[in-house]
């Protein structure tokens, strides 16, 4: 289980990106993190995966623990060996490597040959198109296929917890639906998922639990189903405008979210 406790993160010692976030990702669940640009979603993932330092970020206080291990100041490669793998935002597949080499790169942290072979079979079973295109360069795949490759590449390390950073970014609605199904399937096969998304419809559809981040703080949290019914989420993330009298659902809410207007 991933436990985050009162986490404060700053960039360059001045910019506060996270201001006391606490959350949990229980084993075997899908947890969604929603929030608009600048809410701290990516910073949260960087802290977990250990790439914060590369961006000159620093954990000021609080902790991130996975089982018995303390994360936050580890090397990203060590984090992968603990069983946490992140699919980066914007896919970041290796465009000059072939599809197969991309998958090999994903399995680098996995020393066990048999486990690697099993992981590859699983990836090809889940994404048959990757097997068809295994000798093609990654850059030649379509956006949706690249996202499949990015997820498949991460699965090559046989993670226990998969971190997904905006997998729907820049994809067609039909493909986003497929990504949702893929996440559900990965979870069914026993991998916990932390899903950071702006597309609330897809995220809340697939998640068990959800958190809403607002300027570095958790503003709402609860089960995904309940959250999807709340007025704020409806209004701000699901696009249903309701001018009816506000009805709060029974969800812990610290403050009222305001619509961003410019």
């Amino acid at each position: 289980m991933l436990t985050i406790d009162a986490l404060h993160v700053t960039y360059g010692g001045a910019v506060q990106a996270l201001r006391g976030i606490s959350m949990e990702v229980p084993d075997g669940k899908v947890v969604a993190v929603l929030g608009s640009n600048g809410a701290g979603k990516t910073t949260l993932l960087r802290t977990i995966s250990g790439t914060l330092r590369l961006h000159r970020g620093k954990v000021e206080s609080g902790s991130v623990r996975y089982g018995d291990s303390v994360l936050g100041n580890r090397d990203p490669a060590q984090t992968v060996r603990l069983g946490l793998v992140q699919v980066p935002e914007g896919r970041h597949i290796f465009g000059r490597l072939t599809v197969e080499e991309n998958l090999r790169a994903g399995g680098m942290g996995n020393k066990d040959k048999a486990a690697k072979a099993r992981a590859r079979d699983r990836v090809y079973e889940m994404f048959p198109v990757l097997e068809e295109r295994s000798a093609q360069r990654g850059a030649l795949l379509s956006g949706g296929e690249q996202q499949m490759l990015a997820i498949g590449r991460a699965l090559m390390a046989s993670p226990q917890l998969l971190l997904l950073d905006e997998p729907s970014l820049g994809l067609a609605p039909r493909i986003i639906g497929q990504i949702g199904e893929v996440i559900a399937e990965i979870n069914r096969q026993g991998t916990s998922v932390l899903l950071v998304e702006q597309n609330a419809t897809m995220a809340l559809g697939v998640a068990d639990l959800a958190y809403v981040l607002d300027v570095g703080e958790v503003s709402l949290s609860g089960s995904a189903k309940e959250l999807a019914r709340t007025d704020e989420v409806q209004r701000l993330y699901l696009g249903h405008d309701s001018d009816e009298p506000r009805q709060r659902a029974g969800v812990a809410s610290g403050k009222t979210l305001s619509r961003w207007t410019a």
Partner: protein
Amino acid sequence: MTQFLSLLLNGLSLGALYALIALGFVIIFKASEVVSFTHGSLLLLGAYSIARLSDRIGFLPAVLAGVALTAAAAFVIERVVINRLRGAPVISLAIVTIGIDIILLTELIRRIGSDILNVPHPWGGKSFRIGDVGISQNRLIATAVAGVLIVAFFLAFKYSSWGVAMRASAEDGETAALMGIRLGRVSALAWIVAGALAAVAALFLVGAPTPGVSAAAYTVALRAFPAAILGGLDSTGGALVGGLLIGLAESFAAGYQDQLLFLGRGFGDVVPYVVMIAVLLVRPSGLFGTKELTRV
């Protein structure tokens, strides 16, 4: 015609040696994002240690020890300096490597002095004739060894885990780290390989027709820089082509010196740089270099 063939053969063998040095230069750039100016002194270190050790422990053990020593020196430079400065601007890192180069070079020149150290190659200074075309045995063996090493390198780069890790982290370091690839290890390995390749090149570069190890061997290594740069700093294939081009250009310019006399004596020594400038004027990122690199 005989002269042409002879120059061609000598140019190719010289070019293969430049290609070995340039390959090391390129993989260091790919793995550590450093333009490493330490290669000249690493090469001299390889030549010097082989020459000094072969008096005591014999030729072959000395070669192995010299290659290992140079690889170890490259590894130490990476661990102690480069790895700690990860993420620093490319320019600062390049200047740091110039500093390291000067320190190492000064010490080596102090030790060598004005002597010319002899490396007792078992094949000596004999030359080999195919018909009328002559080439020193040293250069012939050099071509064969360099060819084998280059093929082995490209196979490893294409198929081995090291190669995949290396290419992945060269393309996108942060993502490679997220996938569990240890960037520090990839970078250290690149330096070790580069050091070893430089030492092997040194072994042959100080043999016939060159008289032996003197401080001048350093300038030989400098000619591998234009080879790497004109091929495109981030392209291993480019390093190979660049190395051969520079070797051929140098050999022909030196061989046809009499016809080129209007350019002045010793034109062969500057021709690598002339070729490099000519190529860069047409293709600023080198023959096979990635375009994006020009924005760094």
